[in-house]
């Protein structure tokens, strides 16, 4: 049965006519464009556009990083400078949840969750959904999925080291530059120094070989401390300096006291029953000594300091 036109054109058809479930009001007359509304709309469109771009960039990055590292015999502790560089660059727009998505995708591809590890993911003792695992806090029940996320505890550590540095804020809402640099836990920091202009953090700081590495370690330690401080203050780690720059001024003005401070006291004629200076009649009965409220205003004035 071919669908008939939904619109009856003759008024004669009224009795069988279908009724739309909406009021048939004419649309409101067009109003002049409000400039402020217009700029708000433009702003929203821009955010939407940025959001779409970021979303595409994240999906493409995840897709690329599923197949990392580029060499099958790569060592997650000593990644190749090019892989490390690409990894750090690609995850800058990530939020922690995006990073979890990357780990999940790698696990679906049967790979260890840590991007720079070429080994297969871990294997639980059985295919049961939940497992008993002995931890420092005693025996705990763990999802098989979680148990198989990493090939080793070492990879779990390296992967989480990255995750805690990711910006919680969506990249399209981040102010100024896109985001902070992401550090990796590596043992071959020197290789990365030669290849990159960027600093890399050492895992368990082995004796620095030269002054440059020494300085790098010092800077890393400072940044760590700043990040901890930021976390403690509830700020976004890595954005500490930016956030505080505007808040702190270097000129401190001392205020000088002009008179002896006096402890506050209840002005005469004033009682705890007063509501904004007025004592209701019922309350006055209760306190017979407050007979002349005519003086109230004056007394109150006198009590003002200075």
């Amino acid at each position, binding site marked *: 049965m071919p669908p008939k*036109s*939904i*619109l009856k054109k003759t008024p004669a058809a009224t009795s069988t006519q279908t009724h*739309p*479930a*909406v009021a048939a009001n004419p*649309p409101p007359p067009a109003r002049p464009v409000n400039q402020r509304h217009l700029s708000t709309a433009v702003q929203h469109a821009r955010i939407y556009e940025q959001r779409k771009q970021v979303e595409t960039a994240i999906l493409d990055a995840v*897709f690329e990083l599923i197949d990392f590292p580029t060499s099958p015999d790569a060592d997650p502790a000593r990644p190749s400078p090019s892989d490390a560089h690409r990894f750090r660059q690609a995850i800058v727009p990530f939020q922690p949840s995006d990073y979890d*998505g990357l780990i999940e995708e790698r696990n*679906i591809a049967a790979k260890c969750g840590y991007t720079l590890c070429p080994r297969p993911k871990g294997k639980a003792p059985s295919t049961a959904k939940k497992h008993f695992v002995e931890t420092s806090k005693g025996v705990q029940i763990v999802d098989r999925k979680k148990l198989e996320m990493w090939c080793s505890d070492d990879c779990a550590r390296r992967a989480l080291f990255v995750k805690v540095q990711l910006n919680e804020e969506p990249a399209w809402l981040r102010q100024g530059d896109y985001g902070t640099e992401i550090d990796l836990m590596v043992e071959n920091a020197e290789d990365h120094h030669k290849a990159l202009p960027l600093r890399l953090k050492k895992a368990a700081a082995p004796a620095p070989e030269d002054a440059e590495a020494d300085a790098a370690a010092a800077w890393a330690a400072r940044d760590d401390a700043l990040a901890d401080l930021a976390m403690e203050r509830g700020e976004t780690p890595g954005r500490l300096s930016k956030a505080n720059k505007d808040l702190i001024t270097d000129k401190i003005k001392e205020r000088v006291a002009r008179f002896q401070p006096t402890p506050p006291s209840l002005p005469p004629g004033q009682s705890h029953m007063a509501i904004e200076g007025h004592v209701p009649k019922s309350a006055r009965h209760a306190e017979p000594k407050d007979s002349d409220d005519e003086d109230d205003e004056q007394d109150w004035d006198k009590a003002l300091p200075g």
Partner: protein
Amino acid sequence: MADSGDHKARQEMLDLWRVYRTTKEMCRDRGYNVLPEECNISFDDFARKFGTDSGQIARGQMNFSTIPSEDMVRKYTPPATPKVLNPEPAIGTLWVEFNADENIGMKNLREFITHLQNGSYYSGIMIVVKPLSGMAMRGIRGAQQLSGGSGPKGGIEVFLEQDLKINITKHELVPTHLLLSTEEKAQLLKRYRLKETQLPRIQVTDPVAKYYGLRRGQVVKIIRKSETAGRYASYRWAI
């Protein structure tokens, strides 16, 4: 134990038979060319066609493609304008795939997209056992932009087998939904002097909207049977 294994396989075969019939009905109700015997396939025929010798279901055999009917093409063709005299219909051949994989991630999704591209399919439907990974779902939302903008024009839809075991539109309380063509929609708005934003809405994620594959901006006519008013129609704008 062999008995319980057989029983399990038979139950799965039964479930998939229902899923298959609902899928075919869904394609038919959207306006694709589907033969009545495809929607009404008997269980025995189904088991013969898609079962292995050992009685297991071979989901890969169930995949199919279908082309839109003339009427569907007409509905999906935007009206001609002075600039575009012969507008392209916003519909085309559909590829439907039954995926047995329990873990479907971005990689599987990209493979699916590649298949759609290679076969020049306009859109694709993936029917899966378990929900896709979060990243894959995000990929589907922006499927057209994926792979450098060469994704399927009509996008990708995903259904869980579980949700197709029964055809929700066959429920007596679900009224008939009829998609309006772009032209019919324009006439409706003109006649009642409405803007589309003034119409009541239906979300594209609504199960019935999903069944009909409604896209944002389309308008459906919903026809209810009413004891007091006979047939009662309302219109909804898909968002």
